[in-house]
């Protein structure tokens, strides 16, 4: 190999190595999830002894959380269906399709998502529309008439329910 060819080869090597030394960490920075959430803690939603039985009710509650460099208390909401005084189903308010918040249509007795017309039954199963899976239930417990939930978020758009 002549000197000139060797120098060309060396310049290419340096360019590739420099590119990798900077490129890999930079891309890693952008691909990693810096905003990882800890395991959701039990949040106090409130007393549920006044909620009607069998009818979904949207309840808002405050819970503190950390998002990037903000630590603050946020308002969250859940849909609660009381089966009896001690037994409730709690749905995440997020549509499993693309993450919009759904509402309850009392007239037709079903949940409807305003974004892309997904429709869910009272038990959360998909009746119509593009949603890939039933509504997500949240872990919940009732102690002394007070409902607590673990406010988790789930991957949207996938057939399987996966906590994020």
């Amino acid at each position, binding site marked *: 190999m002549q000197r000139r060819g060797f120098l060309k080869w060396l310049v290419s090597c340096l360019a590739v190595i420099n590119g990798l030394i900077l490129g890999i960490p930079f891309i890693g920075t*952008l*691909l990693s*999830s*810096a*905003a*990882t*959430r800890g395991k959701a803690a039990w949040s106090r939603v409130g007393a549920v*002894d*006044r*909620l*009607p*039985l*069998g*009818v979904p*009710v*949207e309840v*808002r*509650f*405050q819970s503190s959380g950390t*998002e*990037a*460099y*903000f630590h603050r208390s946020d*308002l*969250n*909401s859940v849909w609660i269906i009381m089966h009896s005084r001690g037994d409730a189903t709690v749905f995440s*308010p997020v549509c499993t*399709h*693309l*993450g*919009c*918040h*759904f*509402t309850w*249509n*009392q*007239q*037709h*007795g*079903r949940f*409807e*998502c*305003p*974004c*892309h*017309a*997904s*429709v869910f*039954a*009272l038990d959360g199963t998909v*009746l*119509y*529309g*593009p949603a*890939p899976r039933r509504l997500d239930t949240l872990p919940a417990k009732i102690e002394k008439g007070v409902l607590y939930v673990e406010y988790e*978020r789930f*991957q*949207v*758009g996938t057939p399987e329910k996966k906590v*994020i």
Partner: protein
Amino acid sequence: MMSHMLKWINERWPLDAVIRATLEEDIVGGSRYVYTLGSAVFIVFVLQAASGVMQLFFYVPTVDHAYDSISFLRTRVPFGWLIHGLHYWGANIMVVLVVLHMARVFIWGAYKKPRELTWLMGVTLLLTTMVFSFTGAPLHWDQRGYWAGEVGTSIAGTAPVVGDLIKRFLRGGQEMGQLTLSRFFAVHTMILPASLAALFGIHITAMRRFGSVGPWNETGRSTSGPFWPDQVYKDAVSGTLVLFLLIGLAVFLPPSYSGKADVLDTSYVPKPEWNFLFLYQALKYFQGVLEPVGTVGVPTLLVLLMIILPFVDRNPQRDPFKRPIAMLCGLLFAGAIGGLTIIGYLSPGVAEAPVISVGKTSGQAQPAGTAVTDREEGARRGSQVFKSSGCSGCHRAGGEGGTIGPELSATTLSARDRQWLIDQIRTPKSHFPNTIMPPYSGLSGQEVSDLVDYLLGLAGTASASPAAPSQAPEEAPPAKSAAGESRDTQFIQERLPGPAAYVIGSAGHGEELFRRNCSSCHGPGGTGGVRNPGSEEGTVPSLHPIDSELFSAEAQQFAENIDKYIQHGSSPAGSGPALSMPAFGDTHSLTQQEIAGIEAYVLRLNGVDRGQLVNPGMAPRKFFVLAAVLYAVLFLVQGGLRLRKDIP
């Protein structure tokens, strides 16, 4: 002096050569206005860069402050309304101009060999413009932008295999939040402008390599004209027209406030910007396992069609009348996108799903025998619930009560059974979808049962007889002294307004929120007149017109005045008012964003614009007239000169 300086520079830098290379070009067939579309795109890009940099002097890219910093720029910075308005409308016009330019190139057959690379760069420019549009909206962190970002990034997440990675890359995590905003900010203000400038460079260099394509018929091609100054003059005229149009749009159609991003507000119906409506509509036709076909397949197909166009259509014929298949395909392509856009625009946005019969669920609300005890005892308690829960504010029963709702008597109640009444109290919309009666989901099963006992009792008695419930007033809540009441009101006034008072909400959306939360007591459109027995005034205060002590022509002051009441609630003066204002903010029954929307609506009812310009620099309309006069004067002067010096 000047020539000396130019000589000095030219000895050190090839200024003359660069200027010659830029301006010296012969255009086949001469200059034309239809060729100005491309340069209009470039002019708007420069305008976007300028107005974008101006916004950067004020914009703060955090979820806490993004929305308010733009509101501040728009209302309190001199000419901030102009800067933001130009940037907003410029973004829309740029998409329009790029599409028109591409249509022009298609009709003229200018994508054909040897101009394939120019066309490909053009397609890339279109895509970059769309990404600009997509990343720009969430920077506002308003309802419109937030949901466009949420749904847009979720759509990317449905791509097979790499979807989740792309979504996380776009969001900077699994969820929309601060890191998403930072990413969109970096991409929109640094990466895309640099890319677009580079693409413009390649696109224009490629175009210059073979020159303008010129007319398609031979006779038209026999002549030619110079780029400078003939075509540049036409470019300048159309660029000026576009600028004037943008100023007009900024003045007469300022972008609306859609309210600060609020994930809890389910009454907001997200819908994409007009230039993404075709995708939004196309997405609706692909469901279930086919979904990625709609979210990823359709856009990829559209882009692929544009990319392969110059390689598939290799017929050198450029006359649009002699290549019917190409023109038909182009028309179909444009028609499909245009049609989808229109259908998407007209679609109400809310669920259009067919009604599938599912067992009515409310029947399970009260398992038999849960709460019913002694009917008479229940009716007695129910008559108190009737007053304390505010029913009597709207419904006349037993000879007293309001008139906003139907009178509750034997005539109106006899056809109703227990379950119907329970449903009506819990979820009034189940019977009357348009009712203004609020759902009383806060009442316990026992209270509802008592109330129903009371109502069924009324159904059994003659409406004229005020029999059973008349004893209730004596058992009403203990009357507070007038002094105590006024102290309460005083207390409210000393309390501070909440955060909502300083956020410019969406009056349009506030109207919907008002209908849901406020109109049952304040009357439809806030016109008042709802009876409030036991209060000094006897009715719930009207908000339209509003109490003169609360009114202020200054939007900020006005919002602060009413915010105290919405945040902290208040109890009207009187011996025992049936209705009192709930503390919507303190109890979190409304978010601050929702309150801001309701405030903007109440202000609008009273003729005050919440987005009122506090420091406009110059009144927008005045500015428009001034600009128009300047252009008109120049137009007249040049016309005069043309006549005098006989210039064609």
